[in-house]
């Protein structure tokens, strides 16, 4: 049965993504955390495929896993970090409060999502084909370059500014007058 296959896939992907998110915040070595974050992005991209958003799933793999995480791993490699102390070793009341507050936050938004959308059942008849259609790269590309042409241009300017800002920030300060002033 097709429906149960989707449900099984969803459960597997959801469990792996929650597990990898938990491992991300509990490992003390940042490289391990980064690898678990890549696993999490991969499973979330699988969930995008279940939601019939093919274009976004591919973009997720290319941009997040391909570009951003490589940047993270490069920076971790450059910095030569010491391992952080174990979470249990550095236990404090502040951290306990943070965790409890986060769980409260989760209960809040979780109940809102669960009960707020429990009686919303979008009619799947006819919607299904349209959902498949709007997930495709042709449809989204057409919309991006016609209806959203201005935001795309602004996003390009944002990326340019970010590149210049990153270069300026990470460049080694060079003082030609007194190079050994520090």
């Amino acid at each position, binding site marked *: 049965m097709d429906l149960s296959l989707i*449900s099984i896939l969803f459960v597997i992907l959801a469990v792996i*993504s*929650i597990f990898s*998110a*938990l491992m*991300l*915040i509990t490992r003390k070595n*940042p490289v391990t955390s*980064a690898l678990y*974050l890549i696993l999490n992005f991969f499973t*979330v991209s699988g*969930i*995008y495929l279940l*939601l*019939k*958003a093919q274009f*976004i799933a591919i*973009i*997720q793999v290319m941009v*997040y896993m391909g570009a*951003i995480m490589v*940047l*993270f791993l490069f*920076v*971790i490699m450059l*910095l030569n*970090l010491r391992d*952080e102390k174990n*979470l249990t070793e550095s236990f404090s009341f502040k951290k306990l409060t*943070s*965790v409890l*507050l*986060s*769980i409260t936050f989760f209960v809040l*938004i*979780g109940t809102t*999502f*669960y009960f707020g*959308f429990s009686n*919303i059942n*979008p009619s799947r008849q006819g*919607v299904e084909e*349209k*959902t498949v259609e*709007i*997930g495709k790269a042709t449809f*989204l590309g057409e*919309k*991006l370059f016609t209806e*959203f042409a201005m935001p795309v241009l602004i*996003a390009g300017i*944002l*990326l340019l500014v*970010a*590149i210049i*800002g*990153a270069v300026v*920030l*990470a460049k*080694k300060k060079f003082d030609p007058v007194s190079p050994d002033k520090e």
Partner: protein
Amino acid sequence: MIDIQYFLILSAVLFSIGVIGVLVRRNAIVIFMCIELMLNSVNLSLITFSSFFSNYYGQIFVFFIMTVAAAEAAVGLAIIISIYRNKESINVDEINILKW
């Protein structure tokens, strides 16, 4: 088909784990990764709504969120590198030069 709530609950779980990570961890790079996790979980909610209501605005929005996340990662990691060059540490408890 799975109900819309389960996708939203998964997104809420991932977002809360990201919040816990930001509040508990002291390594600036891990905090940054948790922020990426939170951005990603919000993307998941937007895609869910987009898919269930057949409205493409959600997917366009996710596209722009990814653009902003890439820009933010580049600038943030550059800031982390320049802090490390000055302080030899990226523990956020030791970075307090802007504290009054």
